[in-house]
Every structure is written in C-alpha cells, then in structure tokens.
C-alpha cells in the first residue's frame, strides 16, 4: 500500500458461512482515505458478501471491523456504519418505488426532519444529481416507480453521496454501471475520480475490467471467499487481472470467420418489425444465425425480444415466428429461476410437455435430462436435486441455458444473459452457442458488452426503441456500433 496517511477501514480475518457454504474464509481488507479500491472476482468469490459485512447489513461470523481506528466489532450495524460515513450502493436497487426521489433521500437520512424537510431533501438530491450526472432529466418530485431502471440507478448513486449531518468517508459501489449507458457511466467514473482526489474513499465492484483499471488506484482480487491479489492498479493489465481471477485467458476470442459468407441464407425463422419504426427496416433471423441486438441499455432490445417471444404463442401483427422458441433471462432473480425448486426441476420445466405419459410426467425421463445437462453445461453441483439457490450466480445462469438449450426450441432468445457472470462461465457459454448455431439453432442475442457482438453473424443496433443500423459481422467495428448508438454521429 502506498502513502495515504489515514486508514478508514480495516477488516481483519472476516469469516462468514451460509449453512455449509463458506462465503468468506478470513478476509483482510484495508482502505485508506482518498483511495479508490477496485474489487474484482468471479461470481461467488465473496465480493458482495464482504461488502454487506462492511455496510453493516450482514453480521460476520468472526473477524474484526476497525473503522477510523476504532474496533467496532460486535456492535456494528447499518446505523453505526452510517455514523462513521460508510455507505453502500447495493447491486439490487434499494429505492422505494412508491415514494418520490426526494422522499427516498429522506429515507436515507435520519436527520431530514422537521418543518421544510421535503424542500431540503429535494435540494440535496437535485444538487448531487446535477453534480454527478449533469444534463440528467430527473425531478425530485418524480415517483421512483415511474423512472426507467437506469434513472433509478442514477438516483440511488446520487443519494449515496448526499451529505447531511453524518460524514461521508467511504462509498461502496457494487456494480454501479450495470444499468447505465456509456455516457452516464463515464460521468460517474469521472465523479469518482474527482471525489477520490478530494480525500473520500470508494470501493468499486465491477465486471467491466476496463472501468476498474481506469478508475481505481488499487485493485483487490477475490477468489473462493479469500483475497488472492492486491496491488496498485498500474501493475495490472486486463489479461493479468483475468489471470489473477483464476481463468485461463483464451487468445482474445477470434470466432472462426471461416464459414462466414456475406450473403444471408437459410429459411427465415423470425421476422419482426418495430411498431414505431419510421422506415421499412425489418428484423430478420435465418436458421443457424446468431443475431446481435446492440445499442445502449434499455433502448428497445428487450422489448423486441419479448415481442418476438409473445408472438410465438399469440398472433402478432408485427412479428412472425416459424419455430418453437425459448428465452434466457438476464435478470435471473426476477425472470429466471424458481427459487423453491431443485436445479433439476429448474432445468426440465421447459421440456416437461414432451415427457408426459398418460397425463403424468415421466420422472425417469426428467431425471435423465437433468443428468445429461448437468454434464453438458458442467454445472458445479454434487447433485441436481439440490436447491437452485445453492448454486453461484454463474452456475444458476448455466442452469437457465440448459433449460433453453435442452428444450425443443429452435430459436433461442437471450436477454443480456451474461450480466454479472464471471469470465470463465462466459467463455464456456460462447463456445456452446457457436456449436448450437452450427447445428442449426437460431440465436437472438441482446448484449450490452460490445465484445460479445463479435460472436454474432449479423447485428442490429437499437436507439430510442427503433433499429438505427444493421450490418453483417464483416462490417462490425466498435466505432460503428457506438456511432449508431449515439445520436450525434448518426
């Protein structure tokens, strides 16, 4: 560690277990004032658990928590954390959708009471939004439930930086940019740099290694509930970071462009039009193609996928689907898994109709399918009968892939499924998708990571709910995607 004078946080030998699963195995972490620490690691490495401990929302089984030189140990909770200036922006949003932006600021600050509290709260949050995200269009009186997910994330981030009577010492940002587009994400990282220069500390958790490398002064790598590396950011490169996380880096994916022909061919599997499309540009997918849906987050890609998905069961004027369809959700918790069920039940649910004999589900067939996909997707579990929640996030996502790939669907929709998935899982899944497409399956793949578009045969770029550009892989460049995604250059 370098020169900074004062240590804000010193976590010593923190351990935490959930039942039999050891989430943290004696972790040490120290953060100095004016330091931006990047925290990286696979899903299930223990990052979020560690941050919950630091934020006071989770009590560790053992270990010491020293804040500003004081050992707070057992008495530590959210309230104490706030009093010592430690705040957290959680991965899943913690705003009340029924309240306004200003009222949500009030929830965060116990001291915002008395006459005129609403005005003060509104001023506080508006000023911070202006400071971090200049040009935003959020009003303090807006009801949070009416805001888009990206704007909600902006409110939540701005709220964490507002100051009343409690000090601001350290802010934990857990995947803060997952719902932000490139511009606002850039604004946030710029703000973090200014803030850190001013002496406040930040812990940044992100799967976007570029962000971490660019914004942080020091990077700590976690793996299997422990810290495996911690060095100044300048000592890392993208590849060395990935290596430290424990993944074998493949020669940065060069999808075999051999079989590629500029001419699109094969029977049409999906044909859809955007309702508000001003020109006659249509969305088309042929058999065996991998089609990318690109653009900034939340610009109509998911809507397009859901429209196509619905068109498979209900007649739709704007979309035609030629074969059975399956969808892989990006938001596992709300759109994907069934939390009360075993991994096997989660995998087989989509395929049960073909296992029905005399009105009853053939248990043997269901078991066989679960076992088959356990092997094929290399889901990390001793037993497919275990509850789905016993899996790490990446492996839950593999189970959802197995659900779709094991079904009779010839068309597979992917709604940014790699969100928050570790690099190792990603590489395995990319490979699998290429194989399946080679065997004739069609993939429609919405992704927010430009790297992933390299796997697509054809790319459609969305902006403000319409398709603004489309091109084959041969013409794919990051610049072209960005140009189409941002209005000014188009």
């Amino acid at each position, binding site marked *: 560690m370098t020169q900074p004078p004062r240590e804000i946080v010193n976590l010593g030998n923190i351990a935490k277990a959930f039942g039999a699963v050891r989430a943290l195995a004696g972790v040490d972490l120290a953060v100095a004032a004016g330091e931006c620490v990047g925290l990286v690691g696979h899903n299930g490495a223990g990052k979020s658990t560690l941050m919950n401990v630091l934020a006071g929302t989770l009590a560790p089984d053992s270990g010491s928590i020293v804040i500003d030189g004081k050992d707070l140990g057992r008495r530590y909770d959210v309230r104490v954390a706030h009093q010592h200036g430690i705040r957290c922006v959680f991965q899943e949003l913690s705003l009340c959708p029924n309240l306004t932006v200003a009222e949500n600021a009030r929830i965060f600050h116990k001291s915002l009471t008395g006459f005129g509290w609403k005005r003060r709260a509104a001023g506080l949050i508006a000023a911070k939004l202006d400071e971090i995200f200049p040009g935003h269009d959020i009003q303090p009186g807006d009801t949070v439930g009416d805001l888009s997910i990206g704007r909600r994330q902006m409110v939540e981030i701005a709220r964490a930086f507002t100051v009343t009577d409690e000090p601001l010492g350290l802010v934990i940002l857990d995947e803060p940019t997952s719902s932000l587009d490139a511009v606002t994400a850039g604004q946030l990282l710029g703000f973090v740099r200014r803030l850190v220069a001013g002496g406040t500390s930040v812990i940044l958790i992100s799967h976007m290694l570029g962000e971490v490398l660019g914004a942080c002064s020091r990077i700590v790598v976690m793996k299997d509930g422990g810290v495996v590396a911690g060095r100044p950011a300048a000592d890392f490169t993208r590849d060395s970071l990935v290596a430290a996380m424990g993944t074998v880096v493949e020669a940065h994916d060069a999808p075999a462009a051999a079989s590629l022909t500029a001419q699109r061919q094969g029977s049409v599997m999906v044909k859809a039009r955007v309702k508000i499309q001003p020109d006659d540009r249509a969305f088309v997918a042929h058999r065996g193609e991998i089609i990318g849906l690109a653009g900034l987050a939340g610009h109509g890609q998911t809507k397009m996928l859901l429209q196509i998905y619905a068109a498979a069961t209900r007649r739709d004027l704007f979309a035609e689907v030629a074969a059975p369809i399956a969808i892989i*959700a990006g938001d596992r918790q709300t*759109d994907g898994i069934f939390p*009360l069920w075993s991994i096997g039940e989660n995998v087989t649910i*989509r395929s049960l109709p073909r296992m029905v004999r005399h009105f009853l*589900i053939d248990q043997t067939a269901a078991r066989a399918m679960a076992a088959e996909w356990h092997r094929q997707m290399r889901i990390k579990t001793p037993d497919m009968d275990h509850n789905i929640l016993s899996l790490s996030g990446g492996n839950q996502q593999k189970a959802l892939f197995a659900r779709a790939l094991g079904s009779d669907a010839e068309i597979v929709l992917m709604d940014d499924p790699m969100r928050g998935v570790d690099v190792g899982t990603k590489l395995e899944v990319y490979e699998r998708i290429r194989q399946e497409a080679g065997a004739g399956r069609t993939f429609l793949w919405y992704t927010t990571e430009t790297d992933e578009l390299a796997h697509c045969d054809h790319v459609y770029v969305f902006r403000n709910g319409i398709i603004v550009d489309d091109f084959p892989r041969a013409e794919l460049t990051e610049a072209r995607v960005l140009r189409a995604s941002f209005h000014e250059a188009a």
Partner: protein
Amino acid sequence: MNVVAFLGGRAWIWSFIATALVWLATVAFTGGTGGGQILTAALSFAIFTVIVGIGQMFVITTGPGNVDLSIPATMALSGAVTTKLMDTQNEMIALGVVVALGIGIGVGLGNYLLIRLLRIPPIIATLSASFLVQSTAIAYGRGLRIKPPPLLADFTTAQVAGVPVLAACGIVFTVVMGVVLARTLYGRSVLAVGQNMRAAWLAGINVERTRLFTYVLSAMLAGLAGLLLSGFSGGSSLNMGEEYLLASIAVVVIGGTSVAGGRANVPGIWGAALFLYLLVTMLNTFGASAGLRLILTGLIIIAVITLAGGGEQQKR
C-alpha cells in the same frame, strides 16, 4: 431445538400431532368413552372442509394475493339450486351433480375474468363476485327448505365400520389431487406460477390457462361441497357456507402450504381439517362458554401458524 427444526421443515406434521393431542385430551376428559364416535364425527364433518380446502390450496399456491373468497357464496348457490332441481328425486342426482359443477365452472370463470380483465387483486375480485353470487342464491332460494333426495342423504351420511363413506371417498380424492399437483403438467405449472409468474411465462408455461383452471377448480369443488353438504344436513340453507370462508383458508395454512405461493401440501389439509373440528369438540367437552371457545379457537390457530411459520422463515 433439532426436533423443532425437523418439524418446522415439515409443517403439516404439526397438524396431525395437534389433532392427536386434542383428541387425547378430549378422550382423557371423558374418561376414555366416545373416542371412536368423536373420530367418526370428525371425519364426517372434516370432509367438507377438505373438499373446499383443496380448492383453496390450489388457488393460494398460485402465488401471493391469490385467494378465493367466493367459496361460501358458491356453496350456498349450488345447494339452493340443486336441492330445488333434484326436488327429492333420486334419479335427478346425476343432473344435480352436473349442475353443481356447472355452477362452479360459471363462478370460477367469472372470478378469473374479473381478475384478468380488471387486473384487480383476486381477494377483491372474488369478494365482489361473491356478493353477486350470494344475492342470486338469496333471490333463488328464499324460503326454500326442500329435503335432499334420499339416496344423496344416505350416501353422505353412510358409514362402514365407523368410517364415513364420504370421508373414504375424500381420502381417495385427496390422493388423486396430490398426484395432480406433483406429477402433472398442470400441477407443476401451478407451483411454477406460484413462485414467479413472469419466470413461469418465460419458461414456456401458459400462465393464464393455469390460473383459469385453478379458479374454476376451486369453484367447482365449492359447488360440489354445497351439494354434498345439503345432502348431509337434510337440505340447503343460505348461510351454510359461511364458516367455510375462514375454515378453507385456515386448513391450507395450518396444513403447511406456503401462503407466499409455490409450495403446497395435500396431506396437511386433512390434518388441519380434523384438528379444527376436534378442537371445537374438545372445548365443548370441557364445557367452555361460547366466548371462551371462540377465544381459544382463535388463539390456537395463531399459535399453530406461529410455530409452523417459523420453519418457513428459516428457509429464506
């Protein structure tokens, strides 16, 4: 504490243990006499709670907020219409059953349409619908006191070696419904929808059809219970379904079904229904006043759910 944890995970066992305890307490008080008769009576009465309870269980399992409050009204309407239709004639029983089920289909369909078209919480939809159904029953059945057909009355009250025939049929029916829940596509769909409606849709389940079937099933069982109950109690009355509103929900919860949806428990329904009946019997035997009986009934329901509900929280 281990025992508690074990039982907490299998919440329905509570209801059977509690049933046994209550029965033992009653029999101990009477000095060992009448234990058999009490059980026979408990089976005879519990079967009606079981029939509507199973319907309610399927509804509650389809997810938070789903509950069928129109069960009492449907029972009243079915009882009123079918007793008048059958008019004490044995040969009309078959038609009566068809009409009772038909009324159920109608009410269930109505409930579902209200939920779907008005996008209102099922509690309110079934409550509003029950007002209409109850009114129809009142307008139709006012002043009627027609005896049920003798064959129906005999069937619903018959016993073989102290076991009510109807209860025996009910046990078979319960087993069938257990299989439906665990092993059919419909049952799996109910469990999936109950855990997460959106995820169920995205997993290829026909969510709306599942909900429709479930509300129709519940109302059909209520219609059937109305017919059987009017046979059992020598004719229908307009308020005969009243107690089944609370009872149907209580047996589902006491029986270990998750009110948050997605997890159902079929055997628990029987345990809970027997428990509720025996509890009242016990308090009567002890000579408790009406007020005290009510208080204890309420407190015991809360105590049972408090003990059983603890296991659920541990799982989360």
